[in-house]
């Protein structure tokens, strides 16, 4: 794949982060030696192409007071996974939901992340959600006890 040098440098800048200034696109344009309009148009293009999933502020939950972070892993029959994944995704407390492969000794194929202001609250939310949808599938709660690293991905 041939990547245009401007595309490449803009992608890098967008993954590193823009400054919080009045005219962020003009700032970026000056850094990259292009016009403000070119920067804006390219971000629009990346978004329309689906290359950018989301553009805006990336937050750290822990620092905002949402100190509990629980990865819930489920063993869902393959036939039902679409339905259950959709139902979990529609819950306000679920911030991520993915299907992943099972492995030997690891039967769980559906992962979702729940963030909350405390462990008790997260457990309560999950319990309520399970009862409401009658989710009688094997699952485990993996609360995080320590964060060693958290930042955006770097590809370029």
């Amino acid at each position, binding site marked *: 794949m041939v990547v245009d040098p401007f595309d490449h440098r803009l*992608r890098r800048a*967008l993954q*590193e*982060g823009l400054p*919080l*200034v*009045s005219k*962020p*696109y003009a700032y970026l344009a000056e850094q990259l030696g292009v016009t*403000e309009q070119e920067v*804006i148009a390219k*971000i*629009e293009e990346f978004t329309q192409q689906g*290359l*950018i*999933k*989301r*553009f*805006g*502020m*990336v*937050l*750290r*939950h822990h*620092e*905002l*007071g949402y100190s509990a972070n629980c*990865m819930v892993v489920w063993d869902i029959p393959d036939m039902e996974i679409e339905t259950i*994944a959709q139902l*979990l*995704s529609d819950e*306000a407390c*679920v911030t*991520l*939901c*993915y*299907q*992943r*492969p099972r492995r030997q*000794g*690891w039967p769980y*194929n559906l992962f*979702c992340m729940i*963030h909350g202001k405390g462990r008790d609250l997260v457990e309560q939310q999950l319990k309520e959600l399970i009862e409401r949808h009658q989710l009688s599938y094997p699952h*485990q*709660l*993996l*609360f*995080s006890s*320590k*964060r*060693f*690293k*958290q*930042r*955006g*991905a*770097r*590809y*370029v």
Partner: protein
Amino acid sequence: MKLSDQDRKLLNKIQKNFPLHPEPFKLLAEELAISEQEILLRLQELESQQAISRFGAVFNHHRVGSSTLAALAVPEQEIEEVAAFVNTFVEVNHNYQREHDYNLWFVVNATDQSGVERVLDKIAAKFDYPLLNLPMVKGYHIDLGFPLW
């Protein structure tokens, strides 16, 4: 960190579809009926306290590279050492200890599959502990921001 109602309103608004306007904060200021200066100062403060990780783009992993979620089952007393080694890779962007036999969970991102495997191979060569490699099969709800309440 104490968030005001105004903070929550602001942060809920700017995690996605951030205005692509030459003066985006001025536009937001009009919508929220506060001044552009107030918004910028508050966001700079949240950034300096690391509540804002960055103002930028979240890219689609599938489209720009390859990634996986991996887990290691590490003896409790060695977790700091193993986590520190895992952190040395620039390809690793998330690394958490979790309450499970598989107690170290990390995300590896690279421009291609072989880049991801290279990192996992190096970790496996250094520490001979059970390792799970769980690349995404399908994403149902992926990093769409986080509603604050």
